[in-house]
């Protein structure tokens, strides 16, 4: 079973620590979503995977072997900074890239035809890349990552700049490749997409993997959250509930209030209900399953500066 393993990557740019023990794996047939705020280290990780950047330590393995130049020819890569020859025809350019990945001339021509048609830029094969709209250039860029039937897909922000139709096509292609047994890793800021598409997600912050697992695994935290709807003024409710031990409250939509139980606390709901009933009729107390966006916000806003500093001094 081919697994893409990212094993304890460390990378520093001078005094700036870009990656600290970045470790995760992407299994065959799996779509892995790589999320994190700007500058968190996603692109650095991907560039190291593709050998475009050298890690200070750690390694990337595929099928148990270090991902070397020969193996990288079987990887499909879409760099964050889109790059194609602006004054070269779409078809010729893709054929060249397919050739560089080791395809024969005829196979390359067939694959280019297939993928440009599939991605909706078949009619533009004879045009220079610079003549295409940005969205279409993006499609060509994706074709460049797919044209050699790669065994691994590494895509940095593949969805940025795509229209909804292209997003659907792209999603379908990623799913199809994963179903064919290809490990797919992509980064994105469109968390709803990641949530919908990915089998597993890794959230990075300041160069470290902070949360890793399936969306469901990430959701099952010990910090339970509810939405409380009471027939009363929101400010009054907030004031009253803040006296409930082991609960943190915050304003929700409309007049609702968000309640979060402290880790390990028991019967928080009971205490909250009792307090709420004193204020008016309780319309609802609904448990909230955190979205990826909530998880992301939690992870990213968590303050752990000391840990990073310790790493730097180590």
């Amino acid at each position: 079973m081919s697994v893409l393993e990212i094993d304890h990557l460390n990378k520093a740019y001078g005094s700036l620590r870009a990656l600290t023990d970045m470790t995760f794996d992407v299994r065959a047939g799996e779509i892995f979503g790589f999320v994190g705020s700007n500058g968190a280290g996603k692109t650095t990780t991907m560039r190291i995977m593709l050998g475009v950047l050298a890690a200070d330590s750690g390694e990337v393995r595929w099928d148990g072997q270090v991902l070397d130049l020969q193996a990288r020819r079987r990887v499909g890569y879409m760099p964050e900074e889109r790059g194609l020859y602006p004054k070269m025809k779409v078809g010729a350019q893709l054929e060249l890239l397919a050739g560089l990945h080791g395809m024969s001339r005829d196979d390359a021509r067939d694959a280019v035809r297939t993928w440009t048609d599939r991605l909706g830029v078949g009619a533009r094969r004879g045009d220079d890349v610079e003549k295409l709209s940005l969205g279409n250039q993006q499609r060509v860029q994706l074709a460049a990552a797919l044209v050699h039937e790669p065994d691994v897909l590494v895509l940095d922000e593949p969805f940025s700049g795509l229209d909804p139709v292209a997003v659907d096509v792209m999603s379908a292609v990623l799913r199809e490749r994963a179903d064919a047994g290809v490990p797919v890793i992509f980064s994105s800021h469109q968390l709803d997409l990641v949530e919908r598409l990915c089998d597993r997600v890794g959230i990075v912050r300041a160069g470290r993997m902070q949360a890793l697992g399936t969306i469901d695994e990430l959701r099952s935290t010990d910090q339970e959250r509810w939405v409380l709807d009471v027939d009363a003024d929101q400010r009054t409710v907030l004031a009253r509930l803040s006296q409930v031990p082991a609960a943190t409250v915050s304003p929700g939509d409309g007049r609702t209030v968000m309640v979060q139980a402290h880790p390990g606390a028991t019967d928080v709901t009971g205490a909250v209900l009792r307090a709420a009933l004193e204020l008016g009729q309780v319309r609802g107390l609904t448990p909230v399953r955190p979205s990826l966006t909530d998880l992301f916000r939690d992870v990213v806003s968590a303050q752990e500066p000391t840990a990073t500093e310790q790493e730097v001094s180590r």
Partner: protein
Amino acid sequence: MTRHPVLLVAAREVRTRVATRSTLISLGIMVVVIVAGAVLLSVFQDRDQDDAPDLPLGLDTSVAVLTEHLQAAGETYGRTVTTTALTPDQGTDALTADPQDGTDTVAAYISGDPRAPEVLVAETADEVLLEIVRAAVVQHVLTQEVADLGGDPDALATALATAEPQVSSVTDADDEFDPVAYTIAVLMISVLLFSLISAGSVIAMGVVEEKTSRVVELLLSTIKPSQLLAGKILGIGVFGLLQVLVLGGAAAAAALATGLADRFQVDVGGALAALILWFLLGYALYALLFGGFAALVSRQEEIGAVTTPLMFVLFVPYYVTLFVVTGAPDGTVARVLTYIPFTAPFVVPVREAIGTVPVWEVAAGAAVTLLTIPVLVWLAGRVYRRAVLHTGGRMKLGTALKG
């Protein structure tokens, strides 16, 4: 079948250059200039020959024996003597006839005793004409006398023909200024300079284009930086060689077609071979430098900052060769520059064309240049590898070397 990445990159470069209109136009202009230059030169040469016009003479039968001597003497004076046998009346007519009427005219009518002929002219006798007749008469008299004395007139003629002073100089004869060799030498290094500069600029622009368009990251995820640089240099080199062949070939073809090569006894093949050899060596040197240096910058506007010093490096050997080496092709300066890799490509072909450079010096110069190439490959490869993925500001050469 997998194709080698270096060849794929090289093929792309050739295809791109061939499809670039501006490159083809400038090449076309150069060809036109070269061919026009050769044709003009040949026209001027032909006109110089026309300055030695025919000298038509009318001869009475009594002086027919002078015909051969007149022609021989005419040759000495740079005239083509044509003779027509005429009666005295015809001779007078021919002297006064108007050439516009299409009748044959003569410059003089010669009659009487061949030992002291009468020369009838229209108005005044041209000094050269008289000299020719005088020489012919002297020759005739000598021949007659020698024959009368029982000697061999032909042996006399042969002896006279070889009675020439043999001139030799203390310095080597090849050191004398030879305008033809000089022209060829200048033409060769000019084609060389043009080709090296245009190829170097194309390489620099190509490297920076890949950086600015960021396609380099995609390429380097599949192939090594050294393969990308090598493919680029190879491809542009093939195109550059094509350019040299077209320019050098145009010059050679023009020289052969207009007869210039024959007239000046130029070794067209040898000159072309030297040009190609030194283009290849010079190209390898300078292309590596252009490629490595260009990787340091990230924007097209900054190319000048790295290519200008290199252009300067190219112009120095060109001008030194043009002004110093052509003057003293076997002097100390020229000999020293033969062993400096960056000047050798300019100096050696000129020394070959003008001077008397020993084969071993050519070989040694080529060897020094060849040995420099691996050093530059290492150096340029190192700079390129470290700088090519660096974006943003300009990377310092020292930083790229230290890495």
